[in-house]
């Protein structure tokens, strides 16, 4: 039996604000004393009134604008009820029927378009840790510092078909969040959480309509599995692959899968059963009566739009189309806003001397070949780097020597322009006696000389190399070649 894999993703992202979603408590809870960033609002005390944070909503809209969503002109909040100690009010303020952003999409590097159903604003819950004890009953310890931190939820349509695309989508969302400073989106710190839902269906027996998976004829759809506790982008792919294999095996053995929530175990690289979901979640949504309807004008949306910057996938296309950069290099360079900006500035500097395309390709070659590998915490001074690259382009220094100099300057804290000056000085010292050196080399290599004269032109490379070595690289290989040709006539 052949199956199709059907994947939808829910991604939660904590957005980067100073204060919480509905109160003025500070958000930075990481490694803080427990329950030190808590007030009556985020503690859910009776009578406390939630007051929405403007910046948080702007960041939600920004994510929506970056993913081509429609932004609502009226914002409504709703209460989502469930009972759990990490949710002190007994409900989470979220959005039900009217999310801030809807109907967006993201195009993956392979060209596949992931449809986004919605992005809505909500609040994070408290952090609870569970403990077992021999002297008393099991208990949980709760820290409400995280309670009320702004959280957005990005929900895709069930349109993803491969684990790799799911991973690429999550990667792209993380990149966008970081580029636009919406969130640091560090999955290990819980700033971004991915929850895929997965099912496999018999080929040709289902169809997708308006983001819903529907059976064809009398086919009965297989239920979906939700996977939680995924702590990294790679685990998104691995967890889905594991589930697809598990579900395929289960169906192959004639067992019907059940609707369930499973947890990813990163140590064992498997998913584990958490709970079955025989009934639909019953959250008893109701409009949040404590928050007024928020009116968003088109001017508001335009203002937020001005925060958009060119996004990685746009940069990749531009680097490839305008400058002929390889896809791989374009992807690596645009992965972080910092690297992309370094690359573009370097291109601009080189563009003063070189043609735009050549400038971009040189910049990319140097970043990919040397600079990224060398750069630890220290950033290489861009003016020095462009100077070095130009010396190489002018044929004043070989690539090998230039890279060696760059490495030496980085690891020994030397100044590139000083080193270049010294190098050029010794090069010009050499220039005076370069004729002598070349003659010396010819005397020492009679066989190569006769080979060359006998028509083996490839010997020229060897002779140039010998001269370069004798001058410790401080000469221009083209000049050397010309002198050799002259003397060998």
């Amino acid at each position, binding site marked *: 039996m052949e199956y199709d894999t059907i994947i939808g993703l829910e991604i939660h992202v904590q957005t980067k604000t100073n204060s919480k979603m509905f109160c003025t408590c500070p958000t930075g809870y990481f490694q803080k004393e427990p329950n030190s960033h808590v007030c009556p609002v985020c503690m859910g005390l009776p009578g406390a009134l939630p007051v929405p944070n403007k910046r948080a909503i702007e960041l939600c809209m920004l994510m929506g604008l970056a993913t081509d969503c429609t932004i609502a002109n009226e914002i409504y909040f709703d209460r989502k009820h469930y*009972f759990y100690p990490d949710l002190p009010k007994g409900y989470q303020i979220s959005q039900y029927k009217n999310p801030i952003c809807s109907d967006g999409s993201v195009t993956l590097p392979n060209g596949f378009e992931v449809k986004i159903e919605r992005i809505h604003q909500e609040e994070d819950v408290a952090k609870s840790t569970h403990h077992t004890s021999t002297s008393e009953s099991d208990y949980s*310890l709760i820290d409400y510092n995280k309670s009320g931190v702004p959280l957005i939820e990005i929900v895709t349509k069930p349109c993803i078909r491969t684990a790799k695309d799911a991973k690429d989508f999550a990667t792209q969302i993380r990149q966008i969040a970081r580029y636009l400073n919406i969130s640091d989106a560090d999955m290990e710190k819980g700033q971004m959480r991915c929850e895929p839902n997965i099912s496999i269906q018999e080929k040709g027996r289902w169809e997708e309509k308006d983001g819903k998976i529907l059976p064809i004829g009398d086919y009965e759809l297989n239920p979906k599995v939700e996977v939680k506790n995924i702590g990294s982008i790679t685990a998104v792919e691995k967890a889905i692959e594991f589930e697809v294999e598990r579900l395929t095996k289960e169906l192959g053995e004639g067992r019907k899968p059940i609707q369930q929530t499973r947890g990813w175990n990163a140590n064992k690289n498997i998913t584990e059963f958490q709970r079955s979901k025989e009934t639909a979640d019953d959250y008893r949504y109701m409009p949040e009566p404590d928050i007024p309807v928020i009116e968003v004008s088109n001017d508001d949306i335009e203002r937020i739009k001005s925060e958009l910057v060119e996004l990685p996938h746009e940069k990749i296309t531009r680097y490839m189309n305008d400058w002929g950069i390889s896809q791989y290099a374009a992807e690596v360079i645009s992965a972080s806003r910092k690297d992309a900006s370094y690359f573009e500035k370097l291109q601009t500097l080189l563009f003063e001397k070189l043609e735009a395309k050549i400038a971009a390709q040189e910049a990319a070659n140097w970043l990919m070949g040397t600079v990224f590998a060398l750069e630890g915490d220290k950033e290489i001074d861009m003016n020095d780097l462009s100077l070095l690259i130009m010396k190489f382009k002018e044929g004043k220094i070989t690539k090998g020597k230039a890279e060696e100099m760059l490495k030496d300057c980085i690891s020994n804290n030397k100044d590139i322009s000083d080193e270049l000056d010294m190098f050029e000085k010794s090069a010009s010292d050499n220039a005076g006696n370069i004729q002598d050196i070349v003659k010396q080399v010819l005397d020492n290599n009679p066989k190569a000389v006769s080979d060359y004269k006998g028509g083996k032109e490839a010997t020229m490379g060897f002779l140039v190399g010998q001269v370069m070595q004798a001058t410790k690289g401080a000469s221009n290989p083209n000049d050397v070649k010309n002198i050799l040709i002259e003397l060998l006539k």
Partner: protein
Amino acid sequence: MKIDVKHTAELSRITLTPEELEKFTPQMETILESVTLLKDVNTDGVQPMKAHVKFDELREDVPQESLTQEEVLRNAKHKEAGFVKVYGKVFGDIEES
């Protein structure tokens, strides 16, 4: 009006005995029935009564001091090392029916 009080109780993590269920169900149904009287009111053309606020008037993102940990924990029945302590297995101690 029929309501499933058992399900509602489970959602709120409240355990009810069969006797309690039998007692509460008609009581809650009566309450809901009286509320449904509102459904008979003709609201055609009546705007929903909901306050509006302009986006620009929302709260600026400026943090202020929170309560002290001591104040936060004052209402907690159990506490440990600055945390609120709750007993009971959190997963699955009440099965959803």
